[in-house]
């Protein structure tokens, strides 16, 4: 036990003291802060005002189109389009909108002239203004009052509520999905980054030929586990430092510049959804619905079961890492250099990548479906998939089954890995294939 502790300490300290580790640890929170703050900062300075000249030959729109704070409408009275164009040339307005004489049943011929390329946003807003106006005109023509219509239009937001034994809780699908995805992504990258570090470490020991000196002092299993645990410590250290430093940097920058961070991915998803469905909420309700959503989101966040989330995150974080880490270690032992690792890396990375892709497609759409269920039970995919499911609520029995299988899976892969490891580390200059590897499992050493 004392020896394995020495190994853990060495693996940990040599990595934590590396320049690359220190740089990564301090640079990443700064980059993260930059990612959050730069868009917010850009948004505050890029609010320039657009002004559009409107030459209305139809006479229907000129009075109806209203200026918005960031989009001015300037009606122009001109004899002909040519005159309007010359008038526009003399100004520095963004564009000139030409509305021809038109038939309400079949409105066409709208033209937007500009000196520079016009932004999509301006075009889009002008179009929707015109559409709205044409609709009103048509309603009037068919005897429906716009006011009346607005009264009739229904606008609802649905609050999702989880009914469970512990009582009712407001939930938010976006918050729930977001919490799971974040956990899954972190686990995925952690397994990859630090799994490969284990593999490199083993290859380094092999190529520098220290390994025979080492295993004349310690058992191969101790050497392997010491390395895996030591590197897990490096990963956890880096992760914790990132969390703490990010929090400090972000709150520090916010306090210093008074900038709100850019919308979180959850909010972006939400506005994205609104845009995708093409539903245009009436202007006056937009503000209130925005604040509704915000309060709903923060309430949903506070309603997440944090102890459970955090606990299971740590469990799957470590479980997944140990399961894959020992396999990465075995690969390192089986090959002589990093270029030979490809063929063995493939079967290990496949379940990881599949579970990662499935987790934000199939699993998130149907967190209680059969795919999600099986993938969250099988140890090779459960660390990632289960993290996505947990915020949606997973029966305790399923969670325990999944965790139990993960522990068994990790014991199993460690057994396999230690068998390959103890043979592989003393084997040089031999091209290894799967048949050879499977023989190693049952070698008597």
């Amino acid at each position, binding site marked *: 036990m004392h*020896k394995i502790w*020495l*190994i853990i300490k*060495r693996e940990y300290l*040599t990595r934590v003291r590396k320049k690359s580790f220190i740089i990564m640890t301090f640079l990443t929170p700064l980059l993260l802060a930059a990612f959050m703050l730069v868009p917010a900062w850009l948004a505050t300075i890029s609010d320039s005002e657009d002004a559009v000249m409107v030459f209305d030959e139809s006479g229907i729109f000129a009075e109806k189109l209203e200026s918005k704070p960031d989009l001015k409408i300037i009606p122009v009275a001109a004899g002909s389009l040519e005159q309007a164009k010359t008038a526009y040339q003399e100004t520095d307005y963004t564009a000139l909108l030409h509305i021809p004489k038109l038939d309400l049943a079949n409105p066409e011929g709208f033209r937007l002239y500009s000196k520079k390329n016009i932004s999509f946003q301006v075009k889009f807003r002008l179009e929707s203004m015109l559409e709205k106006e044409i609709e009103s005109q048509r309603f009037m023509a068919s005897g429906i009052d716009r006011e009346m219509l607005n009264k009739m239009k229904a606008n609802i937001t649905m609050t999702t509520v989880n009914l469970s034994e512990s009582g009712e809780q407001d939930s938010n699908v976006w918050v729930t999905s977001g919490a799971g995805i974040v956990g899954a992504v972190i686990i995925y990258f952690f397994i990859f980054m630090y799994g490969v570090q284990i593999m490199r470490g083993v290859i*380094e*020991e092999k190529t*520098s*030929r*220290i*390994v*025979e*000196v*080492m*295993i*004349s*002092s*310690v*058992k191969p299993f101790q050497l392997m586990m010491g390395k895996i645990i030591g590197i897990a410590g490096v990963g956890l250290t880096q992760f914790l430092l990132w969390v703490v430093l990010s929090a400090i940097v972000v709150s520090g920058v916010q306090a210093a510049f008074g900038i709100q961070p850019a919308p979180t991915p959850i909010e972006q998803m939400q506005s994205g959804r609104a845009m995708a469905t093409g539903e245009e909420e009436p202007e006056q309700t937009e503000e209130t619905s925005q604040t509704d959503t915000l309060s709903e989101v923060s309430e949903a966040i506070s309603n997440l079961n944090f102890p459970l989330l955090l606990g299971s995150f740590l469990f799957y974080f470590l479980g997944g890492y140990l399961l894959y880490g020992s396999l990465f270690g075995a690969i390192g032992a089986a090959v002589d250099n990093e270029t030979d690792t490809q063929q063995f890396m493939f079967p290990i990375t496949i379940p990881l990548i599949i579970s990662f892709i499935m987790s934000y497609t199939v699993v998130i759409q149907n967190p209680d479906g059969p795919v999600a269920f099986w993938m969250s039970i099988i140890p090779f995919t459960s660390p990632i998939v289960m993290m996505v499911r947990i915020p949606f609520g997973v029966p305790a029995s399923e969670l325990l089954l999944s965790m139990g299988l993960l522990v068994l899976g990790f014991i199993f892969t460690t057994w396999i890995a230690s068998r390959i490891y103890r043979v592989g580390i*003393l084997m*040089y200059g031999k091209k290894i294939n799967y048949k050879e590897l499977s*023989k190693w499992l049952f*070698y*008597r*050493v």
Partner: protein
Amino acid sequence: MSILKIDGVTKRYANHTALDNVSFDIPAGCIFGLLGPNGAGKTSLIRIITQITGADSGKIYFKGEKLRPSHIKDMGYLPEERGLYKKMKVGEQLLYLAQLKGLTKDEAIARIKEWVARFEIKEWMNKHIEDLSKGMQQKVQFMATVMHEPSLIILDEPFSGFDPINANLIKDEILRLRDNGATIIFSTHRMESVEELCDNIALINRSRKVLDGPVREIKDTYKTDTFQVIGNGQLLITSPDFEVLEQHDNHGVFRASIRLLDGASPNDLLRYLIQRVEVHSFVELVPSINDIFIRKVKETYHA
């Protein structure tokens, strides 16, 4: 008393036998040569002694006890394939390896200081291994092998990669360690390189022990009672007690290899010669370990 007793050790790999019923004793406090050509099974045997691998059958006793993991810390092993952690500093590396051998941190630091003074390498302590020359790395590795003062030191091809100066330094250290009571096993295929150092040897060929025992006794057994004589005069041997194997004459100087036949002693030959010629040199032709090995291997093949 023997420090290591190897009793009928057999080790098989998938498609060949590395050791076939090998038995011999290694007396305590001697320098023991484990000799044989490449691939004979030396490294396999060492790996079994250092418990890197296990024997398929047979037993090994260390200081009279059956070999067990706790014996590891009383052994030092310098493998043929040398290696250290390249990115670690010399001092850290020595401390780490010494602690893995069971020394406490304070003990390890004290020993490191002692060895650093002996090898005069104080200025290396904060250098990374990768910044050292190959010879320096070898010295560090040798220190790491013996720092915990094991009673059994196993050196696999110890002089490969050393320049003559460092090789002599290491030889002196080995003799000093032996005088302090340690037992040293040399494993090498270059038999001439350790012949003069070894007190006892075992010869291994094709996974079998061919021969073992004290070097002096082995040489006595295999000597052919042949003497080389150099001198002035006309040498013509007519006595039936001696047989001339080879003779060269050159301007009155002769050089001859003469074998004693039944019952004749070296002094008989000398007396016989002195009456006839002027003797300048009279040397027994002792077979080298290499010669003995070749003879023995031939015998086993023909047998």
